[in-house]
């Protein structure tokens, strides 16, 4: 297979920077495919070339397949990395890349179709005899019909976008009364974010933990797992804090779940990086979904294993990545990631876009900062409000938590409000500290806006 000389990055923010850096190490040039809004960003300043593929709204730029392919070709790229979100789990896009003679850095269009579509993935899971959460995943999208289904499953029920992930189009429905409104909202969000309004329903497990396994398929078709992450701390089904490895798994469960993750990935003939997500409640696990892309939280896995998943993806795409069967990767220590969002925790987490002033991260051993914007850049309301990811590693989980608290306190971000005060509350909560947190943590303890201390105005 041909070596990649120049790679197009079809994404923005910190992940665009992350991909660029992996390319730099491999001696690959980069073309950033960006929207009009993203000229002022770190990735724009770092990449070898840039091509503007459209106006700021994502439908006209980052979700526009034709413009993205044309941009990559015009930039002289021979491969495309889609990052996460946007077109990363779009099988049509993967196919269009291949048709344009561009290497798609990720799984095959076929794998995306079977594993990435939540409804089809469940059919595959049944084949592999993986346990599933009770639910409805049919084509009938009539609101009254869905309400009946929800009642049959038993409230609380969760509605999710059939074509998406990342919390968009997801709604928790607690009663028949609020069901119609929530279902309509879920369908609208799914349509807006993924171009398909189809949703499916699932029983909501009320004290579950979110556990996921990093899977990887190398150039030869061999599939392995790179252990687990726990991402139980979520707000509106969007992860906020992730860690590797999970503090909640016994060795026996870890082995069983890892085997299940690899089994379904093998059935889907998976290549490149992906994630198999599970819910764990009362020592029983259920398959949630498979994400056919790199995850936002991939750095915690890299930190405990000393690997580079983005580089491995690129090498796999050009046929150069073979996992040696003798390699026993043993996770070391504990890694935690916090997502820093431009939002105001004192006003219930409403977005806080704006011009960034000073942005400064306290460097040190076991500290890693993934960020896409610096002083003078603007966090716009067109996109996800994530400013940066802070990742720490230490020998034990308590020490990693201690380190994260110090790092967040010493992080300076001016110009936009951030969720740092909110993150600090989570990190020092007894349920988090002891590792007993469930996906309802935020709902249970931090559902109200934080109180402003003393007379300060925030």
């Amino acid at each position, binding site marked *: 297979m041909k070596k990649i000389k120049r790679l197009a990055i079809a994404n923005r923010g910190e992940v665009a920077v992350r991909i660029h850096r992996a390319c730099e190490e491999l001696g690959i040039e980069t073309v950033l495919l960006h929207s009009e809004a993203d000229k002022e960003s770190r990735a724009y300043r770092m990449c070898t070339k840039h091509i503007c593929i459209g106006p700021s709204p994502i439908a006209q730029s980052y979700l526009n397949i034709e413009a993205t392919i044309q941009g990559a070709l015009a930039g002289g790229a021979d491969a495309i990395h889609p990052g996460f979100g946007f077109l990363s789990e779009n099988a049509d896009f993967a196919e269009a890349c291949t048709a344009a003679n561009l290497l798609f850095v990720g799984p095959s269009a076929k794998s995306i179709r079977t594993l990435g579509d939540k409804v089809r993935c469940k059919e595959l899971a049944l084949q592999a005899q993986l346990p599933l959460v009770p639910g409805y995943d049919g084509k009938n999208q009539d609101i009254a019909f869905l309400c009946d289904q929800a009642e049959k499953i038993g409230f609380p029920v969760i509605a999710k976008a059939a074509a998406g992930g990342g919390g968009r189009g997801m709604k928790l429905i607690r009663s028949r009364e609020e069901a119609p409104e929530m279902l309509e*909202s879920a369908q609208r969000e799914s349509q807006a974010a993924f171009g398909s309004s189809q949703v499916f329903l699932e029983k909501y497990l009320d004290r579950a933990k979110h556990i996921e396994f990093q899977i990887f398929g190398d150039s030869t078709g061999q599939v392995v797992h790179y252990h687990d992450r726990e991402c139980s701390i979520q707000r509106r089904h969007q992860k906020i804090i992730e860690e590797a490895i999970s503090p909640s798994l016994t060795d026996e469960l870890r082995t069983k779940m890892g085997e299940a993750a690899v089994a379904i990935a093998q059935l889907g003939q998976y290549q490149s990086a992906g994630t198999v997500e599970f819910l764990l409640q009362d020592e029983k696990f259920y398959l949630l979904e498979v994400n056919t892309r790199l995850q936002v939280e991939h750095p915690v896995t890299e930190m405990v294993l000393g690997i580079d998943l983005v580089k491995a993806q690129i090498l796999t795409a050009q046929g150069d990545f073979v996992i040696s069967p003798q390699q026993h990767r043993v996770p070391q220590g504990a890694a935690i990631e916090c997502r820093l969002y431009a939002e105001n925790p004192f006003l219930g987490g409403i977005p806080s876009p704006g011009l960034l002033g000073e942005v400064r991260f306290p460097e040190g051993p076991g500290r890693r900062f993934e960020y896409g914007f610096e002083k003078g850049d603007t966090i716009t309301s067109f996109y996800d409000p994530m400013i940066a990811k802070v990742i720490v590693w230490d020998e034990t989980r308590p020490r990693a938590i201690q380190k994260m608290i110090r790092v967040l306190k010493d992080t300076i971000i001016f110009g936009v409000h951030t969720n740092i005060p909110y993150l600090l509350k989570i990190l020092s909560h007894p349920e988090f500290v002891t590792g007993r947190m469930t996906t309802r943590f935020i709902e249970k303890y931090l559902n109200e806006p934080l109180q402003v201390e003393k007379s300060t105005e925030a």
Partner: protein
Amino acid sequence: MKVPFEFQGQFHEVEAELIKGHLWIHFQGKTWCVEKESTTPRRGKAQGTRSSGNRDLISAPMPGKIIKVMVQSGSLVETGQVLVIMEAMKMEYTLKADRVVQIAEVLVKPGQQVRLGDTLISFKKEESSS
């Protein structure tokens, strides 16, 4: 920019920056944002959020787009009833009534872009006798 200051007899240094009329300060692990005007005496509070204290209207808590308006002028709404659904940064946010109240006027339409603090809905004045 580092700014030295004295607090309770001790000398400290804070990181501070003035951005668009707001003073941002980072000190001992916390960040504050102070409106420059509010350092001088001024009547009233910052506008735009529910904390503006005006119980007679619902204003936009953030810039964004109106997705759906669930009430009409004259409707009587119950506590917790959904009034307006808006979208910002690709997520939907629901604005609900915080009490039983009658709608006076709906000032926005679906699809409309609104700025922080724009009035979306006004309520009929409550009778003081109750």
